[in-house]
């Protein structure tokens, strides 16, 4: 690990030059300021150990392939320019050369050596990431893929939420990594937040595992990377990396049952007397449906519809009235509520803090 780090840090400047030459635009992006940003995402702006070791390995592989590219490209250009037909050839044929065993051996053995080096560097990172033991202080989350949204369960903390994952920042001296168990209830999905780690698929009947130990706070964007059906594109993912106190207070808030607000009793009645409660749960009430996202603390989330829209009054109303206006192909049906019922249920939702 240490050797790789040293090697890749000295090679980084070389890598940047090569990147500038052949993937110039990519390098410009790679050099973006590495602040926590809720907007752009970039695999070269890692915020956790797995993402960091992948980024370092990527630079290492890029440098090697970059050197190969420069050498072979130079040979190609040289032979095209140098050996072009000229008027002075007068139609004569060049010397007919059939091959050379020594040269063939050279360009067989050198690539084999390069492959060995690349393989060893790769195998080490595979092992470091995949076979990392789970420390005692790790936060456990079960991430469950649904057609077009994410369910997050914290089995030790008794929390169920959706689409916006909250995890604690991990101090390298006292690591509190998050270990995700990945499940799917329907089709294949893939969990991908580029700055926190590589992607891992959520496959029915095939539990997977991944981990991350974010080292800076902020909101990190990602989304489903494995085509999962009509609304694959709007199965977005937000990971909020919180400081220790923030995370603790978020956990306390999520552990509470739903707020009882007498002013929203009409909306609650609409919610519980329609099909809403067949799919959605609100802890502490009769609603315990599991097909859709848990709504107990809906208002603590910044977005609705798996990140497809901001969590505002108007969006919420539109979503309940006609989900396909925001996300055509979403499995939530239009409930065809009267305006009065719609307003009431939206007010009820807005009390679920």
């Amino acid at each position, binding site marked *: 690990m240490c050797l790789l780090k040293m090697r890749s840090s000295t090679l980084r400047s070389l890598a940047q030059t090569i990147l500038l030459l052949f993937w110039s635009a990519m390098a410009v992006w790679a050099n973006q300021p590495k602040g926590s940003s809720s907007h752009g995402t970039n*695999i070269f702006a890692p915020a956790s150990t797995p993402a960091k070791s992948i980024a370092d390995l990527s630079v290492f592989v890029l440098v090697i392939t970059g050197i190969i590219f420069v050498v072979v490209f130079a040979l190609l250009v040289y032979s095209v320019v140098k050996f072009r037909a000229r008027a002075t050839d007068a139609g004569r044929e060049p010397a*007919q050369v059939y091959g050379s065993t020594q040269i063939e051996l050279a360009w067989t053995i050198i690539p084999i050596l390069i492959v060995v080096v690349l393989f060893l560097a*790769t195998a080490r990172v595979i092992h470091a990431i995949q076979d990392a033991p789970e420390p005692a202080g790790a936060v456990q989350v079960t991430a469950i893929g649904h057609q077009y949204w994410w369910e997050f369960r914290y089995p030790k903390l008794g929390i169920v939420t959706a689409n916006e994952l909250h995890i604690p920042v991990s101090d390298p001296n006292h690591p509190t990594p998050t270990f995700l168990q*990945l499940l799917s209830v329907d089709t294949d999905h*893939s969990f991908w937040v580029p700055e926190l780690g590589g992607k891992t698929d959520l496959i029915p009947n095939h539990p997977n595992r991944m981990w991350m130990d974010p080292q800076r706070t902020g909101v990190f964007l990602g*989304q489903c990377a494995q085509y999962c059906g*009509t609304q694959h594109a709007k199965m977005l993912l937000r990971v909020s990396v919180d400081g220790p106190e923030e995370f603790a207070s978020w956990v306390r808030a999520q552990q509470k049952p739903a707020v009882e607000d007498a002013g929203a009793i009409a909306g609650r009645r609409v919610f519980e007397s329609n099909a809403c409660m067949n799919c959605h749960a609100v802890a502490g009430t009769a609603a315990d449906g599991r097909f859709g996202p848990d709504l107990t603390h809906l208002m603590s989330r910044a977005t609705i519809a798996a990140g497809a829209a901001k969590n505002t009054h108007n969006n919420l109303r539109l979503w309940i009235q006609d989900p396909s206006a925001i996300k*055509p*192909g979403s499995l939530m049906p239009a409930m065809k509520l009267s305006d009065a019922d719609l307003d009431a249920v939206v007010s009820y939702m807005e009390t679920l803090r």
Partner: protein
Amino acid sequence: MSSNAITIPGTQIQARPWVDELHQWLTTVDHKRLGILYILSALLFLVIGGVEALIIRIQLMHSHNDFVSPQVFNRMFTMHGTTMIFFVAMPVLFGFANYLVPLMIGARDMAFPRLNAFSFWLSFLGGLLLYFSFLGGSGLYGAGNAPDVGWWAYAPLGARAFSPGHSSDYWTLALLVSGFGSIGTAINIIATIVCLRCPGMKISRMPLLVWLNLVMAGMVLIAITPLSAAQMMLLIDRYLGGHFFDTQAGGSAVLWMHFFWIFGHPEVYILIIPSFAFMSEIIPVFSRKPIFGYPVMVGATVCIAFVSMSVWAHHMFTIGMNSYANSFFVITTMAVGVPTGIKIFNWIGTMWGGRIQFKTPMLFSIAFLFQFLVAGLTGIIQSSAPVDWQLSLSYFVVAHFHYVIVGGILFALFAAFYYWYPKMIGRMLSERLGKWHFWLFLIGFHLTFDVMHIPGVLGMPRRIYTYEPGRGWDTLNLIISIGAFIQAIAILVFVANLIISYFKGAKAGNDPWDAWTLEWSVSSPPPAYNFATVPTVASRRPLWDLKHPEDPDSRYE
């Protein structure tokens, strides 16, 4: 032979030349006509698949675009991928193999002419079945039509629970039927090469194109079989209550992935090896030198074929295989880069010390070398499993495999078109239009697929019909789309060239490129049954021997 009006005493039957001509094309068992039919059907599907690509690119031009609905978009990328792989790339390569292999080995036809016709019509029927889904299918959304499960149809998306209606059935049947066609053609190519070589054409004297098509045909037999098996299992799941891939009843989604990619990765080599074959014929002729390291080229190809059978799960690095399995597929995938690199070096070695003529086929070949180099290197980058955990399923992968398929295979095919069109038609393709075609396509290609790597690095997954603004993807996608339209214009120039040159091209003569293989020893187009007398060869370049009796190859081999 074309318009023999039949006259029966007492009746008057009108001569119908075009009906007779059509009848002859539909019932032909001639390898040259079937080759051209394969190529024409591939061109038809190329245009259709290209239009689908343009629809995808218009939709992705900017964030939150609503040019098409998500349902239509999903159909478009499913149909684009399926069409381009199964009904463009494979048929066009089979077409060239059909046309060229018998001519190059001095045979009068393929070994099984009727099987040949049967295979072509099966493949074509497969394409028609796929497109009939627009009328007969219904997709994920219920009211849809064409398949919308992606060209891998990952389980359980293809199960009836998630894909009701018949759209996935048309996809399955299309692949099954065209798969049988491919197997038939592969058997035919192998039998032809093994049995019908002319006197003197030892296996070590076969042109590289023939060698590589032999290897390709062997791979087809091995790779298409598991695909066909998987399609049958899927049909059993969908209609006979099977549970192979039905995860709701305990089936395995991962099993489908293995079946699909154990076909899917060799398939890439099934497509690229015939492209290597074109390069191995065209680069020597325009460098005026024999291929550098013929035995090594053959060995490297066989080596690629073997190793490529053990790399399939590099498409599955993200599915949670254990670290040992991941490491195994890393090393095999990287290893396949070695024989592939050897091939590139040998082509450069062929040009080295030559007198390179920059005719259109050679321009496409040089661009092929450059692009295939880049595609190979981005492949090596992704063969490193941890790097692939980031790049897999992103636009980086899309850029990579289009670099292989468009930058590699399609450029090689264009080279082949410009090189062998004179043989097939008897007229030269216009060099002027050819250069327009080349430069436009080159610019469009690089604008699209160079830039496409970047959104992948920036976290853009593939197969999304839209994306949020502010992710830094908008400008890049706009550039990619502009490049796609430039490529489309270049394709129009190409099709125009094919049509105009058919009527107005300069007469080709037997041997317009001063080449060395047997197909150039007969007239253009070649006569029925190719060779009036079966030729005898003494070296790998029989026409070189003929043209240079003072210094024949046969002296050195």
